[in-house]
């Protein structure tokens, strides 16, 4: 089937065609869709804090409010085999049945620049197919995860009550991008203490009014309040320049890593024929 006919079907609500178009984008094929100005939330946080379960609970709440929710759940590919084990959707209870929910698991694959060149077109396609709330989920808080969530206009950091302190998150730099912080597992006693210490640390740097919320995704506690808070987040805030900087850096990395001169330059660097400065100069001129 040609791609234009496929886009038309996807926009009419054909999930099979939508799923196939997402695969096409992932394999590097251009899918021509006009800009849909999608609503996107990036969710990240350390492993095991309950991000997927929380997204599942948020999705149910959104669906009850009449939204159509699409989730892109990103997990790393194995650097050794290139394979991946993708199991985020098993924690999202309505992912496999509700017609108002679409969950797609994505492996980072070993593309130069990871998923970065494909995220924008995927989000745009989902938006133009009528998905009114789009979530990007990544695990961890490393640089590549930050790059991925920076493609969302709103960023939510999820932490848990059993993780010591928030210093880990601050080290990774994700705190600076987060518009909202959630401490999940509020059913565990230490969670109130953790959310208080996050609030304290935000207040050190002056007038920081970013919301810090407590939820228990498995008990559906605090979910409605969380959705209320997410819905009123301002997109144009002081963190917007940071987001765009991360997106620009992603694009830049992609250009660098896909430069045909790259392997030659790396060889020259390795053999000592050129130094780092000369290598940068050569890339700059190409």
């Amino acid at each position, binding site marked *: 089937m040609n791609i234009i006919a496929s886009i038309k079907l996807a926009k009419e609500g054909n999930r099979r065609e939508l799923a196939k178009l997402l695969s096409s984008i992932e394999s590097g094929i251009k899918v021509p869709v006009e800009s849909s100005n999608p609503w996107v939330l990036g969710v990240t946080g350390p492993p095991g804090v309950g991000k997927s379960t929380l997204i599942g609970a948020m999705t149910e709440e959104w669906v009850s409010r009449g939204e159509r929710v699409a989730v892109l759940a990103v997990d790393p*590919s194995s650097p050794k085999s*290139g394979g991946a*084990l*993708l199991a985020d*959707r098993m924690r999202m209870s309505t992912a*496999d049945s509700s017609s108002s929910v679409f969950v*797609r698991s994505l492996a980072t694959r070993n593309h130069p620049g990871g998923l970065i060149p494909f995220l924008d077109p995927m989000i745009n396609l989902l938006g133009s197919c009528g998905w009114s709330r789009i979530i990007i989920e990544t695990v961890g808080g490393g640089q590549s995860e930050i790059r991925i969530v920076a493609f969302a206009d709103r960023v939510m950091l999820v932490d848990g009550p059993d993780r010591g302190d928030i210093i880990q998150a601050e080290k990774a730099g994700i705190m600076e991008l987060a518009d909202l912080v959630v401490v999940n597992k509020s059913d565990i006693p230490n969670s109130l203490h953790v959310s208080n210490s996050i609030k304290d640390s935000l207040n050190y740097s002056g007038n920081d009014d970013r919301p810090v919320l407590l939820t228990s995704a498995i008990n559906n506690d605090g979910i409605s309040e969380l959705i209320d808070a997410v819905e009123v987040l301002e997109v144009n805030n002081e963190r917007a320049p940071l987001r765009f900087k991360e997106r620009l850096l992603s694009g830049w990395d992609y250009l660098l890593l896909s430069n045909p001169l790259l392997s030659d330059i790396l060889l020259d660097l390795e053999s000592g024929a050129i130094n780092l400065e000369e290598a940068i100069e050569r890339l700059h001129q190409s």
Partner: protein
Amino acid sequence: MGMRIVIAKPGLDGHDRGAKVIARALRDAGHEVIYTGLRRKPSEIARVVMDEDAVAVGLSTLSGAHNVLIPKVCEELIANDMSDVVVFAGGIIPENDRENLYSIGVRAIFGPGTSTSSIIEFLDKVSERKKENLEVGVGQNSGWRWD
């Protein structure tokens, strides 16, 4: 480049050690494995295969309900325009029940004692047949099976 493969647990069966071992083995062979978790309905499994645009689905069942659940998954796939998806099964499936499952489109059945490498060989064969445009999907009537 590996394939996208759903590993699913249909019905009321809480035994997932086998499914998890298979999921890991397939990942280590370079495939992208989507694991559904326990107790999925046949209609939900078909939905996962659709949304994830998977090439194949492996059904793990040890509860004795394979004669009901596996055909239901196959029917759901065919009814939803996914006749090209490859279905394979594993778990406790007695010899006497297998012929019927093959006849409705299951391409391989792996019982206890199967080494993970033979499942990977099966998937390599599937990949080869796909490349040659040979029929291998659940709703494609070719009679081909792995044994």
